[in-house]
């Protein structure tokens, strides 16, 4: 039987609040299912009629906005890249090189995202992503990320201390994350 207090990975209320402050509640992946450092990340997105974003996007035809499929994959890819650079870079989505949608994501659908890091540079990276639903291709996305440089964007870190780490724990990243040699990744103290 599930007992919340016994879950090893359970967050304290303070930790939870830190990761879900109203302005930061922008999580478009429900759960990481695979994460191999420097290689790829996979995650699930469950589409629910209870989500407000389905209300107004296409009235009368509830569907998950394709832009948020891109955002979910960008979150997987961004985390993949940030981890690859030791959480030292401020990673932002800079460009969507390609976005092809083969079918609408509808309430009850479970989207399986897979994002592969294709190439990295000192100033950014490119990644390619796919979304599958019930085994068939739902979307194909190419992403380009850039690192904010300290001269032009001297606004400090993108996240408050502890915030990103909490979000990633909520998404179960550290339950599945391994380094390039297959060794489990721990929550970094930089998060």
């Amino acid at each position: 039987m599930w007992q919340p207090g016994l879950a090893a990975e359970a967050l304290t209320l303070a930790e939870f609040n830190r990761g879900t402050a109203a302005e930061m509640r922008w999580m478009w992946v429900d759960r990481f299912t695979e994460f191999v450092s420097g290689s790829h990340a996979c995650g699930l997105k469950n589409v629910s009629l209870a989500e407000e974003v389905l209300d107004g996007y296409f009235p009368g035809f509830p569907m998950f906005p394709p832009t948020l499929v891109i955002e979910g994959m960008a979150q997987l890819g961004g985390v993949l890249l940030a981890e690859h650079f030791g959480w030292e870079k401020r990673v932002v989505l800079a460009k969507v090189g390609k976005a092809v949608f083969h079918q609408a994501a509808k309430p009850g659908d479970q989207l399986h995202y897979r994002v592969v890091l294709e190439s990295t540079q000192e100033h950014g990276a490119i990644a390619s992503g796919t979304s599958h639903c019930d085994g068939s291709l739902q979307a194909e996305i190419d992403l380009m990320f850039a690192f904010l440089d300290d001269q032009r964007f001297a606004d400090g870190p993108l996240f408050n201390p502890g915030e990103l780490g909490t979000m990633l724990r909520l998404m179960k990243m550290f339950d599945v994350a391994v380094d390039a040699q297959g060794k489990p990744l721990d929550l970094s103290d930089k998060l």
Partner: protein
Amino acid sequence: MSATSEEIFEKVQAALVDALGVDDDEVTPEATLVGDLGAESIDFLDIVFKLEKAFNITIPREDLSPEDILTNSQFVKDGIVTGEGMGELKRRMPWADLSKFEQNPRVQDFGNLLTVQDMCNYVATRIGG
């Protein structure tokens, strides 16, 4: 066997069409990346990724963006690149046609200098074509 200039042009053209969302026929050798093809600063990173992949090379940032020269007071006076600065630019970018820029070398105009042909020339120097 080294690539012919036609092969290089075709791959550079494909990279630019992909990165900038322009048509094939817009990517002529004399077209400037910024003025004619509408490249923005973030596109240069994309172009670099696509050229690296197409030609299997790595492109250091300073090769295509000599910002360190253009912001160095030793090489720039009152927004104009000095003779010494021009020498430095030519050493850094021997593949670029700087003749027009040299006539009135205002730093603010440098951003719109590079042409498709310059990119082809650069790639040729890197792959020995």
